[in-house]
């Protein structure tokens, strides 16, 4: 029998008011550092700032408007997909298919518009198709009990084949009014706006709503969550749908930005980039813990790395090696930091 109870015995003391008094013992700077580092997002933010400084000193074109637009174009849609991936990861699952949904959705939109639907509705039809893939992922995973890795590996190939079939393998051009086109991704500011807006809204959903709470519960302790009556299958499925819909939306944004819908766009590259962004940003693969803002910053850091090294004339092959090393280093640091954080509070 361990007696590890806090033995303050005055029954009148209000729990929840005591700790601040005890914590004042540690020096101010350490408390500040701990407070800052307790937010997982802070470390990735600092890394981003350091990288920007480094690249700006190496090449003064880095902070030019043109290059910043470039940066946004690479990062924004990755960040949107990463936000969806965060929800799936926090609920304790994983989605490999989202990059293929990214490629499929604009085609569905294109055909819906071709069938006479106004473009706004066509976008919605595309997103419904994306959501349907998420629904399949969710139902197969939670009802048949397949590991999400297997389910979404299957839908990855299925959706890719479907996209190649309905497109015949050739790119097409989306048509919409100028305003619609720029609002939906053609203007870098609009694309940045979507990424930031979605990140803020989804961060709020994750941390301040029932849906987010039950998502964390489901991933953190699936049995316990079910024991208190949380519908864990529904939560997981809902998050697969959300992730797929966000993947589809990112695909639509890029289609309008590029002015062309390519059946080979996105795919596994953007899926892995999104996954990397989520993980670098502080989301755990084990479920129960994650941050959408962190994923947004993670996508930005990936974009900064890619863009910065391109400016420095580093080849794409070298870049992949650097990226791999960067993931390993940031993750190692993150793990150390979170251990330190936990000890600091014990």
């Amino acid at each position: 029998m361990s007696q590890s109870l806090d033995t303050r015995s005055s029954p009148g003391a209000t729990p929840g008011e005591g700790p601040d008094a005890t914590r004042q013992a540690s020096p101010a700077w350490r408390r500040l550092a701990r407070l800052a580092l307790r937010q997982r997002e802070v470390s990735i933010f600092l890394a981003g700032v350091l990288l920007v400084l480094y690249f700006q000193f190496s090449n003064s074109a880095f902070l030019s408007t043109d290059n910043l637009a470039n940066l946004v174009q690479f990062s924004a849609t990755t960040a949107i997909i990463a936000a969806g991936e965060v929800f799936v990861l926090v609920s304790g699952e994983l989605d490999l298919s989202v990059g293929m949904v990214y490629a499929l959705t604009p085609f569905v939109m294109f055909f819906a518009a071709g069938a006479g639907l106004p473009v706004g509705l066509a976008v919605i039809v595309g997103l419904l198709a994306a959501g349907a893939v998420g629904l399949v992922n969710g139902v197969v995973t939670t009802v048949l009990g397949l590991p999400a890795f297997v389910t979404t590996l299957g839908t990855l190939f299925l959706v890719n084949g479907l996209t190649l079939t309905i497109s015949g393998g050739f790119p097409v051009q989306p048509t919409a009014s100028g305003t619609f086109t720029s609002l939906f991704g053609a203007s870098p500011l609009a694309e940045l706006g979507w990424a930031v807006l979605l990140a803020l809204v989804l961060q709020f959903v994750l941390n301040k709503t029932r849906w987010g709470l039950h998502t964390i519960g489901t991933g953190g302790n699936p049995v316990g969550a079910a024991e208190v009556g949380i519908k864990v299958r529904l939560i997981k499925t809902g998050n697969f749908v959300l992730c797929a819909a966000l993947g589809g939306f990112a695909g639509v944004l890029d289609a309008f930005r590029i002015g062309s819908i390519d059946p080979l766009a996105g795919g596994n590259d953007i899926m892995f980039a999104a996954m990397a962004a989520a993980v670098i940003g502080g989301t755990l693969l084990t479920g129960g813990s994650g941050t959408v803002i962190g994923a947004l910053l993670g996508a930005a850091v990936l974009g900064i790395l890619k863009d910065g090294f391109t400016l420095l004339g580093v080849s794409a092959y070298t870049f992949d090696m650097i990226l791999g090393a960067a993931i390993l280093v940031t993750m190692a640091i993150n793990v150390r930091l979170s251990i330190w954080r936990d000890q600091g509070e014990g």
Partner: protein
Amino acid sequence: MADASTGRELLRAEHIAKNYGQVTALTDINLRIDRGEVLGLLGDNGAGKSTLMKIFTGFVKPSSGQLHFDGKPVELSSVSHARSLGIEAVYQDLALINELNVYRNMFLQREPVKGRFLGILDDKKMRAAAIEQLDRMGVRIPSVDVPVAKLSGGQRQGIAVARSVYQKARLLLLDEPTAAMGAKESALILDVIQRLKDEGEMGIIIIAHNYAQIFDVCDRVNLVEGGRIVFDKKTSETSVEELTDMVVREYREARRSVQAG
């Protein structure tokens, strides 16, 4: 108060059985508990106590058998269904989410929300209510803002008990609620159970290894063995010594059958 007249019956289990594939967890359970009654459920490890409790919470579906709640037959379709009838539980594994802080755990799946369908959490309300409830129960924790992962086993059990008690249950199920607690914490929990019992309406089932500890608060004791209730007596008609004799005998028989087989 422990006098069992049919009008006071809260829950009755008839011929409850449960198999997990080849494993038979429960063979034929017949059990009854009245309003205001505290029932102690004893039995060896693996006897099926937790399984029985999970059947009462709607978390596990029985393979066969019938439950009656308030004198009416019920089929518990889900945990939410059971909770809507007023059945609350402290599971042996506590069902706490390590990543969430104390007050969010306390209100898990019963969260006060704002903004209607948006389901925005009312953290302020949860926090204040959690502080008050834990204080009233004498559960001492450093702060309700820390993730429950940072707390001791006894503190976590205190939170799980406080959560189930907060809901003003009609039937409260406690699966080894003091297993990780020191003597002082256990006494606090037993005090809470005694207070709830004194209010006279709540039925309480306590599963406990340390039956000497709960003996005084119980009105009746049942012993589960081989998936059946093999012993059912009021505490006024038995004693800790008799229970000890039974458990020792059971242990000897179990050992003999292992040696024979």
